[in-house]
């Protein structure tokens, strides 16, 4: 069993560029089949939730307006959130970097003598690589979301922001449980596998010293943390242990409590095609005097990690409107083919292609904005109307051009004089009518003699025949056909 796992993990490439990682992923027929099937299912379920185009348009406009309004007032809303949370007895911590967030969380845990923390699903905790950090400080973090539990057992990272183990089949999970959970007989019965996870996790919930969760939305006017989930693990993580730490990206704040329902409607329908999740948690402080349950302490860690920098650019700020539904990846023809790990990033798919380069910088992630055919499927389904294709184009420019006024991390890191020159040549041919007419004449005369071994043509002909140039361009033909050609 262990050898099977090694093979599966070996398929995840750690090559420095997307093209090479995608190449490895594409050769894994099983992986492609799994993603195709899963994404087809998610697309169908989402579509069923938005049967009326007008209703979708108006709900989306409402959600978009809420997120834009919240972002427009982000600094003051965060101050308000801080004040209201404190009034509710929630201790608030501000973390400028991932390392700061890790240290703050570890500090709280160490102060309370915590050895084991049970975790609800949190992508921000992935972003700050919390589990590894805590392990180095002898604190064990146990993932309690079923998908996260599976990938933690497999020592992998999530391949999707909502369904972290979507790259694993039932048989993969069966083999994993058999090899990793003591006394677990092999079974690929889903109910039996779920029961096993439940049994293992129940023990962890009962014995954990602290719980950690993410936050879907934080309400500034009330100091309330909203958390949605389907398994009840989020509720257990945030109520059973004596200490609860919530970690969120600072863009997740909204103005008013009434802003939450429309966003939840968009979030769950877009993400999993559910009208509502099984659990919707509103957390507004620790256990109060006389109450029977709930943690004795609640902490909120607000993570910046480059978000303030992104906020400073009025166009790129749109990135922060994201409510992390994952619909963009579910509908992405590239993601569907290569899976989440090919992005080698916490956030894969279209949102990852605009977020990762901005957080990590163009030096390491500058090729991600190019991992798109700009088909626009992501922008079309985004429930808060983030113009992802336009932002991809913007970031391609940020990677390619050095601009002293740019605030984008690693601006110009992918600058190439050859590329500059190529586009300059293109510009000359296509902006001067005489050059264009001569150019098209020439290409139609001799273009077919170009060897297929030319660099770009070689890539083209790897799966296609050489394009055949016409005998004469249209601009010549219109004249001979007597078409008005002023």
């Amino acid at each position, binding site marked *: 069993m262990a050898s099977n796992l090694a093979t599966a993990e070996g398929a995840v490439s750690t090559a420095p560029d997307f093209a090479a990682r995608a190449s490895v992923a594409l050769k894994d027929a099983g992986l492609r089949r799994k993603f195709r099937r899963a994404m087809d299912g998610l697309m169908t379920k989402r579509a069923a939730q938005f049967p009326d185009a007008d209703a979708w348009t108006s709900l989306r406009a409402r959600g978009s307006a809420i997120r834009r309004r919240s972002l427009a007032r982000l600094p003051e809303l965060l101050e308000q959130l801080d004040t209201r949370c404190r009034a509710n007895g929630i201790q608030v911590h501000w973390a400028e970097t991932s390392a700061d967030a890790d240290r703050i969380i570890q500090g709280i845990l160490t102060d309370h003598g915590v050895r084991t923390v049970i975790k609800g699903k949190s992508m921000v905790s992935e972003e700050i690589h919390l589990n590894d950090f805590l392990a180095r400080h002898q604190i064990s973090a146990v993932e309690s979301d079923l998908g996260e539990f599976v990938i933690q057992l497999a020592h992998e990272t999530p391949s999707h922001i909502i369904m972290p183990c979507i790259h694993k089949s039932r048989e993969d999970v069966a083999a994993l449980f058999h090899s990793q959970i003591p006394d677990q007989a092999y079974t690929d019965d889903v109910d039996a596998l779920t029961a096993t996870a439940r049994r293992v996790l129940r023990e962890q919930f009962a014995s954990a010293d602290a719980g950690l969760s993410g936050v879907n939305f934080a309400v500034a006017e009330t100091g309330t943390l909203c958390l949605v989930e389907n398994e009840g693990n989020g509720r257990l993580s945030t109520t059973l242990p004596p200490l609860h730490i919530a970690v969120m990206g600072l863009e997740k704040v909204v103005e008013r409590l009434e802003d939450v329902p429309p966003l939840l409607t968009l979030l769950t329908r877009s993400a999993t095609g559910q009208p509502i999740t099984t659990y919707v948690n509103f957390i507004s402080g620790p256990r109060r005097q006389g109450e029977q349950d709930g943690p004795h302490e609640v902490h909120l860690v607000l993570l910046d990690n480059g978000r303030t920098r992104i906020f400073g650019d009025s166009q790129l700020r749109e990135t922060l409107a994201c409510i992390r539904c994952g619909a963009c990846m579910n509908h992405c023809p590239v993601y569907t083919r290569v899976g989440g790990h090919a992005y080698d990033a916490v956030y894969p798919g279209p949102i990852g292609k605009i977020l990762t380069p901005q957080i990590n910088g163009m030096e390491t992630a500058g090729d991600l904005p190019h991992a798109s055919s700009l088909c626009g499927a992501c922008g079309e389904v985004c429930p808060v109307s983030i113009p992802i294709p336009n932002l991809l184009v913007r970031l391609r420019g940020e990677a390619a051009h050095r601009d002293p006024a740019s605030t984008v991390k690693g601006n110009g890191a992918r600058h190439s004089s050859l590329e500059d020159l190529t586009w300059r040549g293109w510009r000359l041919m296509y902006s001067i009518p005489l050059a264009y007419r001569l150019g098209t004449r020439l290409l139609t005369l001799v273009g077919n003699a170009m060897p297929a071994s030319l660099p770009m043509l070689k890539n083209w002909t*790897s799966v296609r025949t050489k394009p055949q140039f016409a005998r004469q361009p249209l601009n010549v033909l219109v004249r001979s056909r007597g078409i008005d050609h002023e």
Partner: protein
Amino acid sequence: MIPIPDKPDTVYFFGTCLIDLFYPEAGLAGIDLLQRQGIRVVYPQGQSCCAQPARNCGFAEDARAVARNQLRHFPKPWPIVVPSGSCAGMMREHYPELFAGEPDEAEARAFADRVFELTWFLVHVCKIAVHDQGAPVRVTFHGSCHSQREMGVRDEPKQLLRDLSNVTFVELARPAECCGFGGTFSVRLPEVSGAMVADKVADIAETGAAEVLSGDCGCLLNISGAMAKNGSPVRARHIAEFLKERCYGK
């Protein structure tokens, strides 16, 4: 939604650079279809490319220089009809943002509002009536991403095909999915693009169609190249060429 203008006496025809180099007969067919609707078609000789390749790669300044050339060569207030949803989308959707803050921004906006995709224009503005004169044939249609998502061209070309009495139109299983062209994407990430076009070719084969039609030459170049490499007998061509041949002969 793009507002439907009254049927004009004269239109400009923007031929696109891919048609110039690879599919001039599609351009001629587009012009012919418009002329047969009683419209005078003017083809400005100074035109070149919509500038999408540079814009999409983040080279806005070079894109603007090329786009500016188009602004100059379509001076009259006539509609500009384009036999490509992608080039039309570039001009209609992206010129305003490309020229934002530039001295000729207003000109670019006015230009953008005059841009229409060919099949949409034939259906909504010309209210074209098609009379099939061809032999029975089974076809399918691939709508480009930008024609669908930027120009709102969804059912128009398919309706034209359904209206042809001897043509059996079969919808693709995934009509809204990208064929993997994406301009420079096809050569920057050839393997990902290759996986996408392979799926598109399989989808086309499933329909049992003898021909796949499209309103966009980028997709056609990609799909026909991949089919030829696989030895597929399915023919790929621009819908304008097909419509012209069915209704008016070669």
